[in-house]
């Protein structure tokens, strides 16, 4: 990740503020998997896993793992009251039918109009798209949690994605260690900036221009 656990938790905590009771939420691997730790204990949220669980709960205690109860990343989970299992086709029917309120994913690049590129680096890393293409295209709201820049310091928020797209014009919000952007009507808007950074720093590390509204505020914590 190239980022400390504190920064990752700050981003996860910010993303958690976008979740409200009763929502169906699908989380990608990596930083998004930290999001449930930041929700109020009494909030009823149905976490959906594309391998066929609706109503995932927290990780089990060590020694309590069930090898046949895992999330889509292959890690043991538990279930909450009201949970159900289904086959993979049904799990994706839920996605394509628009039943997922919020999907939170990582990404390699996001363009200023919300194009998502998170599945391959041609010639280098070709893991395959898994379920990302359908989640990105069909979730009601899509939040990307990612580092502001890549390992070489290059912007990951760009005018035009240079990597192959997972899905076009699908991202609604980007949360990085430096800022929160909203994407609305094909426009990139800087909504919040993290404590300790400046708009100049954010501009220098972002590969495209963005709007700065008059009500811009510090990143919510």
């Amino acid at each position: 990740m190239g980022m400390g656990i504190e920064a990752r938790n700050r981003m996860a905590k910010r993303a958690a503020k976008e979740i409200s009771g009763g929502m169906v939420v699908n989380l990608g691997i990596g930083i998004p998997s930290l999001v449930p730790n930041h929700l109020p204990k009494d909030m009823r949220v149905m976490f959906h896993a594309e391998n066929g669980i609706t109503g995932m709960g927290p990780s089990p205690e060590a020694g309590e793992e069930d090898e046949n109860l895992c999330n889509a990343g292959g890690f043991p989970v538990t279930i909450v009251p009201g949970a159900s299992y289904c086959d993979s086709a049904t799990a994706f029917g839920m996605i394509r039918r628009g039943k997922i309120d919020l999907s939170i994913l990582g990404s390699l690049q996001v363009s200023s109009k919300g194009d998502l590129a998170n599945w391959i680096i041609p010639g280098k890393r070709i893991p395959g798209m898994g379920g990302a293409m359908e989640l990105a295209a069909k979730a009601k709201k899509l939040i990307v949690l990612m580092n502001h820049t890549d390992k070489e310091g290059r912007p990951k928020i760009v005018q035009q994605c240079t990597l192959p797209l997972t899905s076009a014009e699908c991202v609604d919000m980007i949360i990085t260690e430096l800022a929160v952007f909203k994407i609305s009507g094909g426009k990139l808007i800087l909504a919040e900036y993290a404590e300790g950074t400046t708009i100049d720093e954010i501009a220098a590390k972002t590969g495209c221009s963005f709007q700065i509204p008059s009500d811009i505020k510090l990143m919510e914590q």
Partner: protein
Amino acid sequence: MENPFNKISGLNEALQHMQDGMTLMFGGFGGVGSPPSLIDGMMAKGLKNLTLIGNDTGFPDIGIGKLVSRGRAKKVIASHIGSNPVAGRLMNEGDLEVEFSPQGILAERIRAGGMGLGAILTDIGLDNEMVSHRKKRMQLNGKTYVVEPALTAEVSIVFAKKADPYGNLVYDKSARNTNPLVAMAGNFTIAEVEEIVPLGSLDPEEIITPGIFVDMVIPTGGVNWKWAWE
């Protein structure tokens, strides 16, 4: 156990239905719900040049990954190979052909094959060259769709918690995943199961895969790999 339908059998008999160069579909998601004894049997039989169809290529020593990482497949149709770096290396070196299909579309193509349909229409992947490339498009009711062909296989292998002598299957939690779909799409379907129970002891309301789709039932030797989280 009474065996009135002659479906209850053993690993050796199951392996007689498998040959080099065959197309085989497997259940499982990251190895969870993949049949361990059948996969080990296929390894031991030395099967090669296989076309494997399933959600992913497991891990190098987990699930179908055992066959893939030892070069036994010439082609895989999957949604993800990232958890098996050997698969990625074989693909980059030209030793393994990989057809990527978005996860839910792959599941639905398998389901369509199992349901006796020829193809599905979807808007997923329309704007993605690697997915929709060379695939037929069609207009229907003013919308554009990609035609995704249905998938079937010569043999399907699945892993279930319980079977009765007719092959009715019940799965275990998230180990269900692609198994009910894969079970329907095989020309010959073999279920490896944790427990075989007498006819009539499964509640008909709880059966997930009706035994009509299952040709052979064999007892499992159990999962013998170490999970990534262990």
